[in-house]
């Protein structure tokens, strides 16, 4: 596969993984928790580096998952102690993120881990960092990691489909039926953390937020079916990656940045033109209604 094709595949996998998982958080009105976790995983990655002294995939995944779930836990704790939830999110993620950034500046230049990388990712280098097993080149590591995380996410969503749905729609009723609401909550937080860290290398900590939230919000404007919403969100993620890549090549700008901007483009399109919930259709319906009445 060519260099460009690998980048496209990586971007699409980021869009797909984040799109599907992030849509669940949009529905739970926890988008800003996704924002928080995608910042704080940086601390998990730096932490994993300090423990193992290398930038290996697996310790990074574990470190990020731990810090991600911890973020959710701290927010929950402050929330239940009476701090309003937006401020709770704000104070937790800025603290942990700041800690991560400060720790990075102690890492030194010899290691491929710096602040800019953490923010924007380096998708352009992905195709060269390949996985080799017994001399066989199996393609970029990032692709394998993203594929693996995507499968895990799909597995969990399939297994706990009805529990995720009910705890999202009506958590009180779910608790009444004896469904482990908190377990599902932290399971989702774990999935978000994994998706974030797998995408981290390619698009960076902050741009992954766009991939998590915007496709889900866009799909929310387009459909009224839960399952279709998840699938649509993943597809919009892929579409954004492809569009963003083309744009980045055309104007010679950051690939990850363009991909994130493309999610915004599709959101605006849905916001205006969505047949069900777009403002244009709403206006037309209003106009028809008033002309019928007169």
């Amino acid at each position, binding site marked *: 596969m060519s260099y460009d094709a690998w980048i496209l595949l990586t971007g699409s996998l980021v869009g797909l993984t984040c799109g599907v998982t992030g849509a669940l958080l949009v529905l739970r*009105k926890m*988008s800003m928790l996704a*924002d928080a976790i995608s910042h704080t995983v940086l601390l998990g990655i730096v932490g994993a580096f300090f423990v193992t002294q290398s930038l290996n995939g697996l310790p990074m995944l574990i470190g990020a998952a731990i810090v991600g779930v911890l973020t959710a836990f701290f927010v929950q704790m402050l929330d239940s102690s*009476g701090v309003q939830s937006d*401020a709770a999110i704000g104070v937790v993620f800025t603290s942990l993120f700041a800690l991560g950034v400060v720790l990075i500046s102690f890492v030194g230049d010899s290691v491929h881990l710096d602040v800019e990388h953490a923010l924007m990712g380096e998708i352009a280098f992905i195709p060269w960092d390949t996985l080799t097993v017994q001399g066989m080149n199996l393609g970029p590591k990032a692709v394998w990691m993203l594929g693996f995380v995507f499968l895990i996410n799909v597995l969990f969503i399939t297994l706990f489909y009805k529990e995720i749905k009910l705890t999202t729609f009506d958590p009180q009723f779910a608790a009444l039926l004896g469904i482990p609401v908190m377990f599902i909550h932290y399971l989702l937080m774990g999935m978000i953390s994994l998706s974030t860290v797998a995408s981290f290398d390619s698009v960076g900590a902050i*741009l992954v937020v766009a991939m998590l939230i915007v496709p889900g919000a866009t799909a929310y*404007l387009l459909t009224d079916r839960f399952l279709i919403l998840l699938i649509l969100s993943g597809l919009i993620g892929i579409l954004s990656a492809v569009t963003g890549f083309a744009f980045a090549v055309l104007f010679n700008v950051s690939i990850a940045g363009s991909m994130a901007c493309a*999610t915004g483009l599709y959101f605006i399109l849905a916001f205006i033109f969505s047949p069900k919930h777009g403002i244009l259709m709403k206006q037309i319906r209003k106009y028809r209604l008033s002309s019928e009445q007169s």
Partner: protein
Amino acid sequence: MFDLLSNANTQWVLIGSIMLGFASGVIGSFVLLKKQSLISDAMAHATLPGVGLMYIIFEYKSIPLFLIGATITALLATYSIQLIIKHSRIKTDAAIGSVLSVFFALGIVFLTYISKNTSGNRSGLDDFIFGQAASLVASDVRMITIGSAILIILSALFFKEFKITIFDPLYAMGLGLPVRFLNLVLLGLVVGIVVIGIQMVGVVLIAALLITPPLSARYWTDKLGRMTILSGVFGAVSGVAGTVISTIGEGLPTGPIIVLCASIIFLFSLLFGSKKGFIPKVVSTHEL
């Protein structure tokens, strides 16, 4: 170390950081009570494309121009959030998250465009992301100090009006207060503090200065007046401590250090705060 601190430029930077911290603590108190902490975060992220765009258009570095650009895109982001919430089924959290991330991404795209496609280099622009006190020149610091002073004075002037409009906007309207105008003033204060603060603290973390100090102050008092002052003091302490530490430790980014100082104050307040702190609470429940 003392040589460094007796340096005239450093002294100015310290004064600037105290004023900035105090102003953000004061304004943050209103933002917190208005439940707009995360909207201020979106505003902060949204200043980046404004800075980049100004450089692309005018092709030279001018702090006043950058700040005008930052103001425009920050306001545009705020307006977009309101537009999305008002005209679609998207909830507040997703609207904020979407606007924040897309605007920031746009900023990143502009910065890469500048470094690859224009003759200038973008060094100096990158400092806007995490802030760098060491790179501030005298005129920047003077602007930060004077700007913060103006914002503090405005907050003091409108204190009782803010109090009533935030607590009970309908009642305030009934009293004949210009609630819409006051909301605009508050919005102006937030944009103001974000814009003058990004050079020192950076767009990614400036919101922490609006969120963390007032939240810490809340653990010590139930009175808005005291909370505002205390929050300002916490902000000022974080600002000056962060600046000193980052100046001494070469290359440490200023913004994250300032935020960490604020976080430490928060942690202390969370545990020991006289009104709602964890330990006083446990003690008082035992006495019951």
